[in-house]
């Protein structure tokens, strides 16, 4: 997000500041920084909200003293203390939504219109000379890359490594265990293939809901009218609401059933899982598609309308083809969110037949670390493969 904001800063504004006597640092503080603050704040808020609602990692790593609100909610749900869970969930929801609303108010006041701008020049990674001035920023960048690698790449690498090593050196035993479990496991045990299949089915179904929903919300949020900010907040809310809360809500509302005109309407666990995944995924579709739509020249839409196209036709013929890469990216996000979703699924899944890959991993972690890492690698491969498929399909559709 910060990168996108930075790219939309007009180079001539910086050059003007420089020609007026500002040093590079001063020009950055006075011209660039104010324009990227909203993006930095958004990034910060999202990071906070995500961490606030992080559940699986804390469940896996932390003991009781590290337990977050989320974990408490989960415990209460497990112990069938629904009322207390709901109360705690409300507290969490309140804090997250308040933060998000505060951000949206801030953004509304700080959005800088960027039209016809010339982006800032990029500097080459290789220093043109060996002066401190040229080297210092690059050394900083290198340090950042090292930290990023340690936090993001190292866990994945170590997982792949662990899945291929046993007590006696390199081995495929963990994968063999998965196969064995699939072939001969009892029905109450986790079936690896079923988990993969469930994950893909849920992801596909969640995508089918989240994509159209996200596109429609994106269209609505990019037009100007009264109450647009409220809609924007509602569209962002699922980002702030953790999976546990969504799961709890769906459990109480849909799975246990609601009284509608005297009859109890209940929805199966699988449908509730799809709903939870779709709700978790569509904000990402909105957030990738909306900027693209907002960046389109309004007169493209108006020209098409004047030529006789209805609003829906314009969306199909003009707007979506032009922001198609963003739609594909949104779809990839929605699928990734669904495949990786743990919190809501673990609340809603009513048996091994509805277990997804992340839940299978969690079940394995308790007793057998090896198979858990192997399952983790399977998850990684399946997710990467779905990205490739989405990218491929997206590319083909683009060519019509």
């Amino acid at each position, binding site marked *: 997000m910060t990168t996108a904001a930075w790219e939309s800063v007009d180079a001539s504004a910086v050059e003007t500041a420089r020609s007026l006597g500002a040093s590079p640092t001063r020009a950055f503080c006075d011209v660039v920084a104010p324009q990227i603050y909203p993006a930095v704040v958004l990034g910060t808020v999202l990071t906070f909200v995500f961490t606030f609602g992080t559940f699986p990692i804390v469940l896996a790593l932390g003991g009781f003293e590290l337990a977050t609100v989320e974990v408490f909610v989960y415990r209460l749900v497990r112990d069938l203390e629904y009322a207390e869970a709901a109360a705690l969930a409300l507290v969490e929801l309140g804090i997250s939504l308040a933060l998000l609303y505060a951000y949206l108010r801030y953004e509304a006041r700080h959005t800088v219109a960027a039209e016809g701008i010339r982006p800032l020049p990029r500097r080459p990674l290789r220093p043109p000379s060996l002066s401190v001035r040229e080297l210092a920023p690059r050394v900083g960048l290198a340090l950042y890359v090292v930290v990023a690698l340690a936090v993001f790449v190292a866990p994945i690498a170590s997982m792949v490594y662990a899945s291929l090593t046993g007590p006696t050196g390199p081995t495929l035993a963990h994968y063999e265990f998965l196969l064995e479990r699939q072939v001969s496991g009892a029905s109450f045990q986790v079936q690896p293939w079923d988990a993969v299949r469930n994950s893909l089915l849920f992801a596909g179904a969640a995508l089918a809901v989240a994509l159209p929903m996200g596109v429609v919300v994106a269209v609505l949020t990019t037009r100007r009218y009264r109450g647009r900010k409220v809609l924007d907040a509602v569209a962002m809310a699922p980002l702030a609401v953790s999976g546990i809360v969504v799961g709890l809500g769906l459990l109480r509302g849909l799975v246990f059933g609601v009284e509608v005109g005297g009859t109890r309407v209940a929805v199966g666990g699988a449908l509730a899982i799809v709903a939870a995944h779709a709700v978790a995924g569509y904000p990402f579709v909105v957030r990738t598609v909306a900027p693209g739509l907002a960046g389109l020249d309004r007169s493209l839409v108006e020209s098409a309308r004047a*030529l006789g*196209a209805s609003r829906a036709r314009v969306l199909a013929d003009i707007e979506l083809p032009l922001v198609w890469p963003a739609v594909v990216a949104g779809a990839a996000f929605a699928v990734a969110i669904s495949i990786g979703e743990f919190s809501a699924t673990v609340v809603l899944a009513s048996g091994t037949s509805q277990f997804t890959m992340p839940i299978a991993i969690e079940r394995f972690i308790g007793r057998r670390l090896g198979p858990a890492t192997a399952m983790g690698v399977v998850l990684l491969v399946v997710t990467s493969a779905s990205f490739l498929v989405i990218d491929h399909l997206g590319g083909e559709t683009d060519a019509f």
Partner: protein
Amino acid sequence: MPSERGPPAVELEGVTKRYGGTTAVDDVSLAVEKGEFFTLVGPSGCGKTTTLRLLAGFEAPTEGTVRFGGQDVAGVPPEDRDVGVVFQSYALFPHMTVRENVAYGLNFADPPGGVATERRVADLLDLVDLSGMADRDPDTLSGGQQQRVAMARALAPGPDVLLLDEPMSALDAKLRERLRVQVREIQEELGITTIYVTHDQEEALAVSDRVAVLRAGRPEQVGTPRTVYREPATEFVAEFVGDNNVFTGEVRDVVDGVATVAVGGEQLSIAVADDVAPGDSVTVCVRPERLSLAGEENRLSGPVRSAEFLGGTTRVRVGWGERELLVRTEDPPSGTVCVGFDPCDAHVLPE
């Protein structure tokens, strides 16, 4: 030119458009006849583009009525209004070829005259001299070519009214002059009612049947280019359309339709209408090209303050007391000069 009697092709009656506290269009009533080339001209923020958007149906008026061929079009969406629109940015669909762009409107309406879609597209590309460009992508075309594709696209479904929103503002001066002639030729050939928005008063005078000069959301004057130039109705029109010298003075006496007007200690002879009487305060304007160094009447003298060489003529600013006179001459003068004008070349603004 109006070709037949009947309801005006386009009519605004008491139309007002407010955004929050600002009034963009203020109680405008205009009627455009069938086949007319009608131009809305004015400085930025005068409401001309908003007026066009109200006609296209992109905006709804806060008050008042818009009629097409006598029919109230309130609530009719743009796609059902039979208008063709060309924007300043052209708004060509970048993911479609020139041919697909021009054919797009034919998805929703049969080509006029019952010809096939391909035939219609070819005819229109021919009309705008782009026959060889059908399979090109819009971004490979020059600005002028893109503008012509946008024209062809807007005309393809055979709209009743063509709306042009500053279609040439993004082009360089030479191209603009050539294209405006072409736009006018196409408009005359098709006889299509055209409403043209521009901030360029010269462009407005050059192409239009009639012009409405807008200021702060209101038409100051509506008339033929000749009338608007020669007989401006207000001081704003006098100064906005072309260069002008405008000054206010008091009528001392009137003899045989010629008034003696006292301006800044000078007595000027000005041809006036019958209703001007001694003691009246009048606003007089004289075009710079009517002031000449050789003029024998109303001779005014002062120092040359600046001379802009414009090629064919030179625009000279001459100090005249506290005022300044604009003079157009062929030879750039210097030092102190004496200019004069014929009493009949001055125009007195109506009260």
